[in-house]
């Protein structure tokens, strides 16, 4: 079942001369874990802004084509209405928290939609628990590390119980440990709650083990749309400057020398296994 469907989506920012994204036609199914990647300035962030109506309602500008999210035509619905279905987590953890305590921040969206207090309390506790930050509930945002702040941001989006969660480079300010925790949280939400995840990410080496569908963008267009193995193996994708995992690079380098691993490895574990097989085969 498609939860997001775009047809020939083209958008130009107000005052812009060329479209930032053009002719995007995508189908995203419910429960998918999507990694959206591409070089800086390729239009990833712009596309994310379309999913919850920031484009065109907040940014104005010219939006053409069709975009339907959870059977709602984005152009016909307000951002606050779409916010119940699509949650957006931004790159900079600091600039998406406004309250003076974690709990209050997580409650923000629910307060906005006018949910009864008892229900807010339940949802807040649940969201804090799902993201593993119950112990931080009373803390002020500036007392938290970047990784913790980002988990608060995820919790506050999660509290709205959205169908889709869009995360725009959520780990780029975090260190590897903080990033890994974020990926684990996102993965759990995807697997346990069946939330559709759209993750914008440069660091494919960290993200690719969770993903089942990769979209590569370049110059405002979708260049590739498919499974991680086929995409990482493609020569063209490498040329666009997408950061291919090192395991895939090793696969490529070996292939160029005439050594063929059985399939494209995405993680170091897979690569180890494939190389092991070939060495053992060689020995026998």
């Amino acid at each position, binding site marked *: 079942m498609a939860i997001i469907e775009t047809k020939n989506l083209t958008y130009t920012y107000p005052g812009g001369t060329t479209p930032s994204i053009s002719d995007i036609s995508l189908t995203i199914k419910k429960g998918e874990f999507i990694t959206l990647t591409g070089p800086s300035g390729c239009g990833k962030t712009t596309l994310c802004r379309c999913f919850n109506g920031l484009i065109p309602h907040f940014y104005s500008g010219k939006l053409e084509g069709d975009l339907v999210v959870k059977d709602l035509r984005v152009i016909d619905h307000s951002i606050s209405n779409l916010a119940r279905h699509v949650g957006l987590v931004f790159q900079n953890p600091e600039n998406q928290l406004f309250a003076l305590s974690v709990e209050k921040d997580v409650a923000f969206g629910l*307060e906005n939609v006018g949910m009864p207090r008892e229900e807010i309390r339940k949802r807040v506790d649940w969201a804090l628990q799902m993201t593993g930050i119950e112990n931080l509930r009373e803390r002020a945002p*500036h007392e938290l590390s970047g990784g913790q702040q980002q988990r608060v941001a995820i919790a506050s*989006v999660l509290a709205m119980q959205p169908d889709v969660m869009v995360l725009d480079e959520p780990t780029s300010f975090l260190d590897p440990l903080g990033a890994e925790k974020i990926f684990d949280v996102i993965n759990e939400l995807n697997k346990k709650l069946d939330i559709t995840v759209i993750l914008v990410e440069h660091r494919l080496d960290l993200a690719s083990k969770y993903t089942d569908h990769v979209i590569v963008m370049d110059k405002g267009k979708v260049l590739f749309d498919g499974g991680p193995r086929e995409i990482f193996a493609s020569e063209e994708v490498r040329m666009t400057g997408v950061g291919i995992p090192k395991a895939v690079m090793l696969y490529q380098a070996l292939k160029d020398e005439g050594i063929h691993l059985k399939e494209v490895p995405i993680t170091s574990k897979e690569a180890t296994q494939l190389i092991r097989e070939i060495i053992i085969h060689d020995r026998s």
Partner: protein
Amino acid sequence: MSVFEGLRFRRVSSPIHKLDPRVKFVYVCTAFVVAVMFNELIPLLILFFIQIPFILTARVQREWIRSMKGASLLALIIFVTNLVSRYLYTGHVWSVPLVEYSLGMTFRFIVLVESFSIFFLTTSPDHLSLALEQSHVPYELCFAFTTAVRFVPVLAEEAQTIMDAQRARGLELDRGNFIKRVKNYIPILIPLIVNSIRRSLQLAEAMESRAWGASKKRTNLYILKLRGGDFGIILFSLLTLSIAIYAKRYILIPSIFAFLPI
């Protein structure tokens, strides 16, 4: 950045911190009214001392002393101007009542600072905003208030980093005459402003994405309810006010020197 440090409310758990901010505000207003009612030193001293237990219960004595130190220069100025002007006004005679009057005026100021600092030291900005909201102040204003408080430490840190970045490019802030020194701050102010604008855009985007303005009837995770202690403080405020009015009308307040052997 110590100025900003002072603005940071510290979370302490005490009976005073738990009081309803609205009740604390009533109390501050009472202290204000009573202080203005009297010129005499004795009632003002009493008013000063009866507030001390609050400070001790709230365990904010250290912060309180700091804020009193901050007010001490102003207190001294008030004392001296009163003394001098009274002296000139009453015909160039130094007298004991003259000194007592000036001391009274100074203590009036100190009492005001005292009660206000109790209020701000023991009320979290969160609660304050909640109190404003429940007093029917428009939500947008309350939100602006908490967001401003939220970003004070962020801004302070950012200013420090910008200063470091520019000093690493050879900027010397305290070089040159006054005008030059003011100009030295331009390379710090511009990035600070530009970043603040960028930040506000990102904040607006994040707010929109979390259903800002979705419903006219906004609800709140917390609610303020008056409890036992709150009624106690209201009672205490009313009592203080009544005693003060009674004293003002029916009692001739003696000079403090009636009790002091001089």
